[in-house]
C-alpha cells in the first residue's frame, strides 16, 4: 500500500544517457523532527520574550527564526540542479549483493555537502560534493533471483546546512544489474567431450601430439624449433603438434538430467566457472541458443549472461 502511494509521488526520470537532473518540480521539502523541535523552542522563546518584554530576547528569537527560514532556502538550493547518473553495476551471482555505482554530479561552483542516497529507509551512502565534483557512491542491494535486478527508485536527500529541513527527490535511473544464476555447489562436468574429428583440422594449434614439420615462421617458439634438423643442415624447421580437441567441451542443456530450469541453469553456471578455470575451450548449447566454442573472460561473460537471461522476460 505504502509502496503504491510512493509510486504516485512525482519522481525524476533519467534521460537517455542515464542522467537525472533534480528540478524543482521533483523536490519535496519538510521540516525534520529537529526542525519541529526548533520551532517549538522558538515559540517558547517568543512567549518568554513577550512576557518579560525583553527586546534582546525578541531579537534572538527573530534571528533564530530568520536563520531557520534561510536554512530552508539553503537546503533546497543544496538539492536543486544535482545530477544523478548511472555508473557501472558489475554482474553478480544470485545470492550475492549487487553493487550499483551511482554518480552524483555537482556542476555548481559551490560545494554541496551532506548529500544522502538511500533506497528504503536506511541511508546507504552520504557524501560531500566539492565544487564541480562528481562522486561515485555504491549502493548495495541483495540479488536474490537471476536476471536483471533493477535498482529501483532511489531517494536523494539532504538536510544541509542546519538539519532543520530535509529536501528529497525520488529518482528513477532505470538502472539494472545483471544477476547470473547461483552456481551449483559442485558438479561433475556432465557433457561428454566431443571427440568428433574436426574437418577443418586443428593442425599446429595444439601442444600434445607431434604432427610434422613445417618451415620456420618468425614468432614460433624456440622450443618447437627442430634443432636436430638444423644441425643436419636441413634449414630452420618448426615442429608442429596437435590433438587439443580433447579439451573442447560442449556444455549442453539437453545433456543434463531432467530437472527444473533453475537447477539446470545453476548446474551450467557451475560448469562454466569450472571449465573456465581449467582454461579449456568450450561452447554452450541452450534451447534456441548456441554459443560457439571459445575461451577467456569475455566468452565466460557471454555464457553467464545467456544463463542469466534465459527465459527471463525483460525487467521480469
Amino acid at each position, binding site marked *: 500500500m505504502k509502496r503504491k502511494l510512493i509510486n504516485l509521488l512525482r519522481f525524476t526520470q533519467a534521460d537517455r544517457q542515464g542522467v537525472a537532473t533534480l528540478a524543482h518540480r521533483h523536490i519535496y521539502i519538510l521540516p525534520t523532527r529537529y526542525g519541529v523541535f526548533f520551532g517549538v523552542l522558538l515559540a517558547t522563546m517568543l512567549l518568554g520574550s513577550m*512576557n518579560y518584554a525583553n527586546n534582546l530576547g525578541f531579537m534572538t528569537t527573530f534571528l533564530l527564526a*530568520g*536563520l531557520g527560514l534561510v536554512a530552508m532556502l539553503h537546503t533546497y538550493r543544496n538539492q536543486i540542479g544535482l545530477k544523478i547518473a548511472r555508473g557501472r553495476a558489475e554482474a553478480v551471482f544470485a545470492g550475492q549483493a549487487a553493487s550499483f555505482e551511482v554518480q552524483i554530479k555537482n556542476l555548481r561552483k559551490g560545494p554541496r555537502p551532506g548529500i544522502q542516497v538511500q533506497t528504503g529507509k536506511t541511508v546507504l551512502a552520504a557524501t560531500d560534493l566539492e565544487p564541480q565534483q562528481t562522486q561515485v557512491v555504491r549502493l548495495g542491494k541483495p540479488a536474490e533471483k537471476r536476471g536483471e535486478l533493477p535498482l529501483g527508485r532511489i531517494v536523494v536527500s539532504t538536510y544541509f546546512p542546519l538539519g532543520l529541513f530535509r529536501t528529497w527527490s525520488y529518482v528513477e535511473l532505470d538502472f539494472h544489474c545483471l544477476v547470473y544464476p547461483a552456481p551449483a555447489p559442485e558438479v561433475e562436468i556432465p557433457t561428454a567431450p566431443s571427440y568428433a574429428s574436426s574437418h577443418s583440422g586443428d593442425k599446429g594449434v595444439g601442444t600434445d601430439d607431434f604432427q610434422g614439420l613445417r618451415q620456420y615462421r618468425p614468432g614460433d617458439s624456440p622450443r618447437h624449433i627442430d634443432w636436430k634438423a638444423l644441425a643436419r643442415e636441413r634449414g630452420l624447421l618448426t615442429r608442429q603438434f596437435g590433438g587439443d580437441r580433447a579439451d573442447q567441451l560442449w556444455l549442453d542443456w539437453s545433456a543434463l538430467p531432467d530437472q527444473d530450469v533453475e537447477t539446470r541453469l545453476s548446474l551450467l553456471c557451475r560448469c562454466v566457472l569450472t571449465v573456465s578455470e581449467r582454461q579449456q575451450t568450450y561452447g554452450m548449447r541452450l534451447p534456441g541458443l548456441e554459443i560457439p566454442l571459445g575461451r577467456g573472460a569475455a566468452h565466460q561473460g557471454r555464457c553467464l549472461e545467456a544463463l542469466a537471461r534465459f527465459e527471463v522476460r525483460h525487467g521480469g
Partner: protein
Amino acid sequence: MGAKRLDRGILLSTIIMVSLAVAPHVTHVNPWISAFYFVLAGLRLLALWRPRVLPGRFVLLLLTAAGLANVIAHHRLLIGRNAGVALLVSMLGLKLLESRGPRDLFVSVFLGYFLIVTQFLYSQSIGLAAYLAVIVVGLTAILVELSKARPSANPLWPLRRAGALLAQAVPLMLVLFVLFPRLSGPLWNLDMDSSSGVTGLTDRLSVGSVSNLSQSRAVAFRVEFGSHVPDYIQRYWRGPVFWTTDGKNWSAAAEPVGSKNPMSPGFSASGDEIAYTVTLEPTGQRWIFALDLPSRTPVWSNLTPDFQLLAATPVNQEIRYRATSYPEYNTGALSEDDRHRALQLPDNISPRMTALVKHWQGSDARATAVVGQALDYFRSKPFVYTLQPPVLGDNPTDEFLFETRRGFCEHYATSFTLLMRLAGIPTRVVAGYQGGEHNPHGDYYIVRQSDAHAWSEVWLQNRGWVRVDPTSAVAPERIERPFGVQDSGPGAPISFELRDPGIIRDLFRQAGFATDALNMAWRRWVLDYDNERQGYLLELLGLDFVRDYALGVTAVLISGFMLLLVAAGLWGKTHTKADPVERQYRRFCHRLARRGLRRRSYEGPRDFADRVVGNHPDLKPAVKQIVELYISLRYGPPTDRYRRNIQTLRNRISRFRP
C-alpha cells in the same frame, strides 16, 4: 540522520560552545547548579580521551535524579525565571554527558540557543549581547558540521558558513523586531521572582539577601505633568512605607497604620501644587504612586497617615489617574503611637553601631546634626554604590556599615534608618521611584522599574517628616541626573567622583562619555523599543494605520519578501553566468539548430563546422570565419584585442543567417 558516529572534534566543540553559553549564568545561578553542570561537562571532556569514565545507564539515572534534587533544593517550586535557568543548565550538563549520537548534539545546541535567550533576562548590556552573538555563530557552526557527511578538513569552514547564514537572517530579524506587535504588559505574572531581586516594589525589604539586582527596563508608569514639571531631584514617587524590622527584613503594612487622621495637627503645605496624570502598569499590588507629598488623590484611593496611596483593590490592569502634590510641606506633630513605632529597634544591634551613634551624639546631640554626621559618614568612608553587592549574613546592617560597604539604595536607607533610631530620632523607610526619563516624542515621563528607589524619612521637631536620601551621599549622580550607568561587572564600583583633572582621567572621562552615549543609543533603539516607540516609528514611516494584528500580517509579508530577496540572491549564484565567448557560440549553434543542424553533444566546434559545411557548402565562408574566431578566442592565448574580437564575433553571428 542515521546513527552516525561522532568524532572527537565535534563533541569537543559542542562541549566548549555550550559551556561558553552557560558561563555568564555563573554569576546569577546558585553555585551548586553551576558546579553540577561543570562537573558533568568536565567528565564528558575527560571521556573524549578516556571513554571508560562515561557512566552507564544506571549511574546516568542517578545523576539525573541528583540534578533534579539539586534544582529543587534551591528552587522549591520550580516556577519562575531562576528555577527555569537552573533546570536548563542542569539538563544541559546531563545531555552533554550522555551525548553519543548526532541527535544528542542537536538537542544540546538547541538548549544552548534557549539558554542564550535566558541570559538576556539578567543583563542586556552591549558586551553580553556581542559575546552571545559570537556563541550563536559557534552553535550554528556545530549544526552545519553535523549536517555534513564527513568532518570538515578546515575547522573554519563551518564557522564561515554559519556566519553567512546568520548574516542572511539579520534582515529578517530586523523586520520582525520592528514590526512584531508589542504588548504593554506581561502575559502572566509570576510573583516567584519578585522576591529574588527584580527591581520593583514589594511589601518587603530584605537587606542583604539580594546579591544581584537586575535592572529591569520595564515601564513602571508614565506621567504627564501639567504646566509645571518638578526638577529631577524633586521627583520622589512615594510607595510603601516600612516601619518594622527584625534586623534583616522590613515589612510594610498594606493597611493604614498610625492615627486615623492623615492630617496631623500642625499640618501645612506650601508652594505651587503640582498636577499630573499617571498611567500605571499592572503591579498586582495596591500601591499607586504619587509625588511627595500627595494632596488631592483619586476618590477610589485611600491616603494612609504615612502618606501611602492605596488603591481599593490590587492593580491588575493598566490604570490612569490624576493627582496633585505639594513640593513643600510640614507634616506636623507625631503621635505617641507613631513615635514608638518609628523608634522600634531589632535585637541584633551591634556594639559598634551603638558606639558610632554615641560618638556622633558626643559632638552635637541635636537631631539635624546627627543626621548630617551620618550622611558625612557615608560620604567620607569608602562606601560604594553598586547593583551587585555581596550577600550579607545574619546582621546585614552591621556587616554593611563596617565591612562590605557596598550596596544600593536599600542598604543605605535601611542602615541609615537604624542608626537614626539608635540616636532616638524617629525614622522610617520609604520605597518608591525616583526620577523618570523624559520621552521627547510624546512629552511625557517614563518611570521604569530600574528607577525604583528607597530612602528614609526622619521626624524633626517643628518640621515633621523630612525626606533624607542617604544614597545621594554616596552616589549623588544617582539622584541628580538620569541614572544611566551600567555596572561593569560583579561588585564593580560605580564611581562618580572624578575630581582629579589628569590627562589619563580625562581620557577615561571621554571614553566614559562615549560608552555612555553608546549605551544610551543601545538602550534607546534596542532595549526600550516598545509599543510606543513602535507606534512612533510606524508614524514616521507612514505606516501608522497598521495596527495590532495587521501589524503581524505586515511583518509576515515583509519577511516573506525579504526571504524572496535572499532566495533571489542564492539563485543568482546557482546559475553561473556563461562566459561571453561561450554565450556567442551558443547563439551561433542556436541559429544553426533552427535550420535543423543540431550540434551533437560529442561534437567539438571544428567537427560540427565540418558537418555543417558538408551539408551546406554555401555556408562555408561564414561558418569558417565564425568558428575560427571562436576557437582562437576560447582556446587561443589571451591577446590585447580580446574584447574587440568578442565584439567582432558577436557582429558576425548577428549577420549570420543560415
